[in-house]
């Protein structure tokens, strides 16, 4: 009798806990249903339809996906985006690790310097876009001026089709403050005993970096690779602003050299009102992102060291 009482009470407590748990989680559960679960289902359906916002969607099967395969602009935007990812991710890692190593040096005033390196990432992207358009101006800009002082070629970044993508790359590399701060935190977590032991064994600076610093921070590097791969595959605002034309709302820069995948998706959705085609593009992007991330995770087993942590 007493046992049954106890069990009844326990199940009552459990139900109470479940209700409170759900009640506290309710805002996100509602948000998930409305802004994630339903949109995923709807998007999958729209990708199989012809939909221009004014008439109800017409089912067309895989026509959007087939149209994509035959659309040269789609391929151009995909090529630009994959190029930005393939070049941008390694450069982001190199630059942020280099900056983190420098900002970790014992120099007075480091908090201020760290803030200055991080600052570009919190500046409104619109400001970033226009500031760099001015800096990259071929006549009055400072980037080409500095290149001239160093006797290097001075490309017309914003008008020359073969330099448009590099201009986007340059602007994105100005905002590596986020990865830099993460690397900085990782460097501070490397046990100092390891360095001291290595120094006793006569290891030089390069050897210490290769055999201690690099393996110890490799899990963080993996995180950085995954995050920046996703960010580059989805890149929108920087190229959109660099390519912005005064009269034309759907510019892709010179020869579409700045047209990123997400820009083309946006144009299809909100300029041409091809909602079905744009939804199909979103799903292809999702698949590409998953595939690239999976490749990174599988190959990471060779170079990521999960040590004592």
């Amino acid at each position, binding site marked *: 009798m007493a046992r049954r009482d106890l069990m009844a009470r326990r199940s009552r407590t459990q139900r109470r806990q479940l209700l409170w*748990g759900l009640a506290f989680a309710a805002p996100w*559960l509602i948000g998930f249903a409305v802004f994630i679960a339903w949109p*995923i289902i709807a998007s999958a359906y729209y990708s199989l339809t012809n939909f221009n916002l004014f008439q109800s969607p017409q089912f067309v099967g895989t026509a959007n996906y087939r149209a994509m395969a035959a659309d040269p602009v789609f391929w151009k935007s995909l090529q630009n985006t994959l190029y930005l990812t393939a070049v941008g991710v390694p450069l982001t890692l190199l630059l942020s690790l280099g900056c983190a190593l*420098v900002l970790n040096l014992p120099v007075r005033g480091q908090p201020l310097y760290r803030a200055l390196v991080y600052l570009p990432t919190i500046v*409104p992207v619109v400001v970033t876009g226009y500031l*760099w358009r001015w800096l990259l101006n071929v006549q009055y800009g*400072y980037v080409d001026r500095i290149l001239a002082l160093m006797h290097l070629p001075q490309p017309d970044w914003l008008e020359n089709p073969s330099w448009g993508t590099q201009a986007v790359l340059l602007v994105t590399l100005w905002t590596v403050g986020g990865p830099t*701060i993460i690397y900085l935190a990782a460097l501070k977590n490397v046990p100092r005993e390891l*360095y001291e032991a290595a120094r006793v064994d006569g290891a030089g600076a390069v050897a210490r970096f290769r055999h201690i610093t690099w393996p110890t921070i490799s899990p963080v590097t993996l995180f950085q690779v995954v995050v920046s791969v996703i960010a580059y595959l989805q890149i929108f605002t920087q190229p959109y602003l660099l390519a912005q034309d005064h009269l034309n709302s759907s510019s892709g820069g010179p020869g579409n050299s700045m047209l990123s995948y997400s820009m083309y998706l946006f144009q299809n959705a909100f300029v041409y009102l091809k909602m079905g085609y744009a939804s199909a593009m979103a799903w292809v992007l999702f698949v590409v992102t998953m595939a690239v991330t999976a490749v990174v995770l599988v190959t990471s087993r060779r170079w990521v060291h999960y040590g004592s942590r």
Partner: protein
Amino acid sequence: MAPAKPAAQIQPRPDSEPVTAAEPITGQADHAAPRRKPALRHLGQAGRAGTRIAAVVVVVAGFAFPFAIMVTTSFKTTGDIFHAPPRFWPTSWTLASFQAAFSQMPFWHYLGNTVLLCLLNVIGTLVACPLVAYSLAKLGWRGRGPLLVLVLATMMLPPQVTLIPIYLIWNGLHAVNTYWPLVVPAFCGTPFLIFMIRQFLISLPDELIEAARIDGASELRIYLKVVLPLARPALATAAVFQFVWTWTDFLNPLIYLNDPGKYTLSIGLYNFFSEHGVAWGPLMAACVLFTIPAFVIFLAGQRYFVEGIATRGFK
């Protein structure tokens, strides 16, 4: 790098000194070197300090240089701005660009709209995120494990997938060109901030909550009187993040706002550029004005930023 060289030449093999974690890249420590005279040793150390400072200066200059150009351009006369080759310092300083920016663009109006949106988003975040985070961290209910996985999984989903259906929902509700689409999502909680607050709450001792429960406090009362006050540092981090996100957001106002009276600064600036493309002086002046608030908030909340990012890095 220049100031470091002479000393390094005098002392090519500097004696070892305390080596710090980050030294591998610049450090030239060589513990086998014979001990030198103290004076020379000091010179060598000064040289290495010089190298370090030079490295920091190069890095900081690279990132800060564009800001310097933005500020000096905004104080230049038109003649100075369109001078080839460009000169760094203005020949004469003028506020004309700022006056032009204010007169050609309803700056204060846009600022008011942007601040309003920021406040509403920060309130939304502070209401919703800690509630969900508390449920995930401290309430022992069945299903909180799967919910956590779900929260983290949504961080991986490209926003492009949900962008169009969400637009169509708001379009169906006739809420396009209102602030609803830009505010309501914050009241549902953001996965990244929920996760960050959850990581903080998990470190709080359970005894505090248990003690309150034994005293007969209701769950809601425990949350409001015990948990929220203790979570203040995590809430500050979340508020700073949300503020800067909303302040700098471009895509959402671009999609949802088309009435100039409702524009945020981002979209106002975007339109200003469309209309007065080559007015670089006023444009840079507007950029300066637009950057200052984010800069102030960042300096005030710098500590919270770095903590938040470090948490994210080590999930």
